[in-house]
């Protein structure tokens, strides 16, 4: 106890430097500038008290023990950020702000709790890696230069009720990860709100709200997420499904976007039970052809890998047999959706295989050019369709 009090007293004195290694119990309180890299050793605890303001002068904080931060500001100019290494559920960062870092908070493994934190003006706000099972809730990710929240390397984090605004490239980037829960998040004014990329990214994304983004949701490179009951409105593109990505899109509201769902490069999502009304183009196909996929798909992907991928492939890398579409009939399954009142008239007039004004597919552009050949563009299979708006309370 005496040792603990002494530690507090020492830390309350304004200081310009800390020892490199913290053991035992340490408390930081008040305004401080840290000029040396600090490490909290395994078994040790660092507490940063409410209303503290810690400025890191180009260095960072590494935690192998336990960190408890409440309502504190952790900031600096291009500082390294905080790294949590395999910490337990008793490590928590609650409230306050982390700003100005290359990566505000990096979580390598472990299961810390991050609640109500503002991540602002970092290159990357929060990065979860090495199968981290962290829980991130109620936090704000704003004006981070690249990414607000980055999940990678098999992270199984829970991501609930956060807000992502004005981040430089992506609000959230899910890379080879499947978060255990991804619910109730709000995305606004990002170039890409939510990116789900690469084989092995199969999250279920539920009841998120994405408005005012350039692209609300981008699914890329053989990712296979499921989107249910999300509200995707007033974006330039609601859903962009690219490069062999077979998303399941059910019971979402994808409306009032310039393009509701853009599908390209041999992607075969399933769109069922959605409200696709009010988009300038509800579904738009591009470079999407059963014939092209059958004849050139595998070879092109191999070539693309050669151009863009260097170094030996990880052993768990996706095989072509896993990446190939299982069923190819030249159509996209978009049956049982509500297309809007105006669209309903047109559907009734033109029937099950008409060229609809709100679907841009092989009926509008029969072929596209690629290499030396031209290839038939796939069509959207939209019948049967719903004849009344979706009652979300009953769905």
């Amino acid at each position, binding site marked *: 106890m005496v040792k603990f009090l002494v530690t507090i007293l020492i830390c309350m004195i304004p200081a310009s430097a800390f020892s490199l290694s913290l053991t035992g119990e340490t408390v930081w309180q008040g305004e401080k500038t840290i000029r040396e890299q600090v490490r909290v050793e395994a078994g040790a605890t660092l507490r940063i008290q409410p209303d503290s303001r810690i400025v890191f002068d180009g260095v960072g904080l590494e935690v192998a023990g336990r960190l408890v931060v409440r309502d504190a500001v952790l900031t600096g100019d291009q500082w390294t950020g905080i790294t949590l290494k395999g910490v337990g559920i008793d490590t928590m960062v609650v409230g306050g702000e982390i700003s100005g870092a290359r990566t505000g908070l990096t979580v390598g493994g472990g299961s810390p709790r991050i609640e109500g934190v503002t991540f602002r003006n970092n290159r990357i706000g929060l990065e979860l890696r090495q199968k981290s099972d962290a829980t991130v809730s109620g936090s704000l990710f704003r004006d981070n230069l690249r990414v607000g929240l*980055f999940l*990678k390397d098999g992270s199984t984090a829970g991501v609930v009720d956060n807000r992502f605004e004005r981040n430089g490239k992506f609000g959230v980037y899910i*890379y080879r990860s499947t978060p255990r829960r991804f619910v109730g998040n709000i995305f606004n004014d990002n170039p890409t709100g939510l990116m789900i990329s690469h084989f092995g990214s199969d999250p279920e994304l539920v009841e998120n709200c994405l408005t005012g983004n350039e692209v609300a949701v981008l699914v890329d490179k053989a990712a296979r997420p499921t989107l249910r009951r999300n509200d995707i409105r007033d974006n330039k593109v609601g859903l962009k499904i690219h490069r062999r990505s077979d998303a399941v899109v059910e019971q979402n509201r994808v409306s009032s976007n310039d393009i509701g769902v853009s599908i390209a490069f041999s992607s075969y999502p399933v769109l069922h039970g959605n409200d696709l009304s009010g988009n300038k183009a509800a579904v738009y196909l591009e470079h999407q052809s059963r014939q092209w996929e059958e004849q050139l798909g595998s070879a092109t992907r191999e070539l693309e*890998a050669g151009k863009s991928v*260097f170094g030996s492939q990880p*052993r768990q890398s996706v095989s072509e047999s896993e990446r190939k579409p299982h069923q190819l009939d030249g159509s996209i399954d978009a049956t049982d959706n509500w297309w809007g009142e105006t669209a309903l008239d047109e559907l009734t007039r033109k029937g099950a295989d008409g060229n609809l004004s709100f679907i841009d597919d092989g009926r509008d552009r029969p072929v596209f050019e690629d290499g030396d050949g031209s290839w038939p563009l796939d069509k959207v299979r939209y019948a049967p369709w719903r004849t009344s708006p979706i009652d979300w309370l009953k769905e």
Partner: protein
Amino acid sequence: MTKAFCQAGLLLLAIFLLTGCAASGRPQQPPNLLGQSMLDGKPHAGVTISAWPVEASRLGNMAPFRSAPSDDKGRFGLVLPEGRYYLFADGDGVFAYYGRNPVAVSVSENRDISIGLVRTAGERPEGEPFLNSGVMANLSADGTPLAGATLYAYLDLTSELKGMGYVMVGPSDDGGLVEAELPAGTYYLLARKRLSGQGVGPLRSGDFVGYYPGNPVRIESGKVSRIHLPLLEVPEKVDSLQASLFGGTTLQGVIVNAAGIPVSGARAVLYRDAQMLNRPLAVSQPTAVDGEFIISIPDGGTYFLAGRNTIGGAPGPGELFGTYDGTPDHSLKVERGGSLKGLEIIVEEMW
């Protein structure tokens, strides 16, 4: 000067007598591979150095080239045809797998190396394994369990016992224990511990490496082999000898970002093929704030050069990557023993 010259001459003569004459009874050329065997930082006598050509299909049993035992200053010498070799050392209760294997040896210039030895004695794992077939290994360094290390199992020598291998398991627990599920077969087992926490990439000073002295190991179906695998810390000089460590041909340059500002923490990676898909031929140490890199390789030829800030697998989003763009196909040519300077690699974030 004269005194130093005489000392060097006497040393060469001693090694010549120690190795060449002892082996065949007839005069031979002076050794072109010289060195010193060290244990706990001190010279160790009575150690025999073995060399296997890199073209060998398998290691084990009697090596085609063996030195006479090292003298009381730990010195040894070996006459080797030009080529690349796996070097081993063994003595009474000690063993070494030279950490920078395979080593390029020239007939025109002597190579002087230091081989760090480990003690082979150690406890094998006890207790019930959590696997049906494979290996349980106790990993140790300086006689104490080594936690956080990774065990690698290689099927053969095609990767020169580098990279991820057939199986890569870890980290070892606080007792140094690690288990690998392996089907019946023959394996080469190595262990490494990188302070960076990465599973692949060149070793740096302070990392650990170990080769199981009983390699290759035969795993029987449904059985678990229990082994002790000692590791040795990589010495500091690996960082300072990049210009000559792997051969007399060097490539030097700088890694910069799109604005021309030097990038720290990046590595130059060299490949034999334009696709740059397979394991690199050579990887530099990470750049410092000046962005400068140097790679040494044994042979001249046409190579393909890139830069990146991570090792292993494809560059992920947000990671730095770029190719040498001095030629349209990113290739460069260098003569054997030559030096290319002023190479520039521009890296950018991959998104």
